């Protein structure tokens, strides 16, 4: 993990404004999947359109970062830029305004899922490596308690409790952020 990965968004923005190339790389690394997820999952754009949105959004971030009023509000600002650009793409492909509204409405729950997923990912970063690992194994890799027990060499009967405790810590992290 690079030293930039531990920076808060506000610190990252300040370094980007100072033309720190490493900070710009981290910003792209941190938000590339986010922008892409909004375009593909939230607005159901094709890969080609999502790629156009991606390029355009990061160009705007690069050229307009000085217009961001609150450095800590980087993520909502990027989300807004992305949503606007996605709507541009959708409206260019649709004939009527009614259809545009329908698409935005349809995508709203998926957008909410994307937001939630990123909040959880940020909160996960605040947990111990052991907690991150065991939650990833159970919820992302669908590993059974037996497999987790065998691979981590911890008693099988304690796995569910360990996961439950890590989830409790994750909840505390999320509540602290909100």
């Amino acid at each position, binding site marked *: 993990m690079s030293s930039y990965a531990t920076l808060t968004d506000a610190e990252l923005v300040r370094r980007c404004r100072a033309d720190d190339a490493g900070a710009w790389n981290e910003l792209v690394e941190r938000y590339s999947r986010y922008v892409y997820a909004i375009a593909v999952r939230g607005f159901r754009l094709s890969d080609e359109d999502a790629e156009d949105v991606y390029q355009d959004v990061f160009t705007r971030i690069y050229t307009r970062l000085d217009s961001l009023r609150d450095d800590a509000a980087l993520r909502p600002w990027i989300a807004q830029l992305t949503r606007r650009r996605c709507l541009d793409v959708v409206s260019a492909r649709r004939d009527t305004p009614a259809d545009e509204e329908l698409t935005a409405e349809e995508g709203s729950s998926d957008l909410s899922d994307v937001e939630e997923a990123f909040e959880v990912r940020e909160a996960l970063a605040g947990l111990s490596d052991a907690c991150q690992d065991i939650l990833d194994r*159970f*919820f992302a890799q*669908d590993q*059974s*308690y*037996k497999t987790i027990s065998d691979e981590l060499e911890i008693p*099988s*009967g304690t*796995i*569910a*409790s360990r*996961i*439950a*405790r*890590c*989830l*409790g810590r994750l*909840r505390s992290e999320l509540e602290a952020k909100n």
Partner: protein
Amino acid sequence: MGGDYLELRLGELLERLSADGLAPGGGSAAALTVAFSARLVAMVARCSVRWDEAGGVSAQANAIGERAVELAHTDGRVWEDALTALRDAEAGEMEDPKRDFALEQKLEAAAAAPLEIASLGADAAALAALAAEHGDATYRADAAAAAALAAGGASAAAHLVRVNLGVRSADPRLARALASEQAAQDVAARLLESRR
């Protein structure tokens, strides 16, 4: 097969189970039984307000329930494929190595889903044990019922693994399925016995 089991009314799902020789069959029913078990554990955890780990156990139980429903679909699909291949083999030439190899591949795939179902059954039973031990005493009988369902699902799935893999009893996958079955049955026996 078609459609999502979760979008069917319970009566429609039961009708479909008994309708014809196609999916859903035994594997899907085993998976859905494990899903019932897991959701029952989630209920016990949610109702156990004084249990610190209840939220985390409920989340795990719901995740297991979702996986079990996905496996019910997967099992139905691979089982129909295997069944079709089996019927083609029975109707075809006596010797056809290419066809026999394809059939073996499909039967291997048909064994993979119940293997995962048995494993989920063991996990659901493990969570039921936690819920019985730490959950609200009012719901301990539900936790024991969940363990019994998990054991039933795991046993049915392990049986299907055995059948789909044929006579190769030394296959490590069969050993895994039987270990999952045994783990789930041990929990169920302990919880059911403690209520007598």
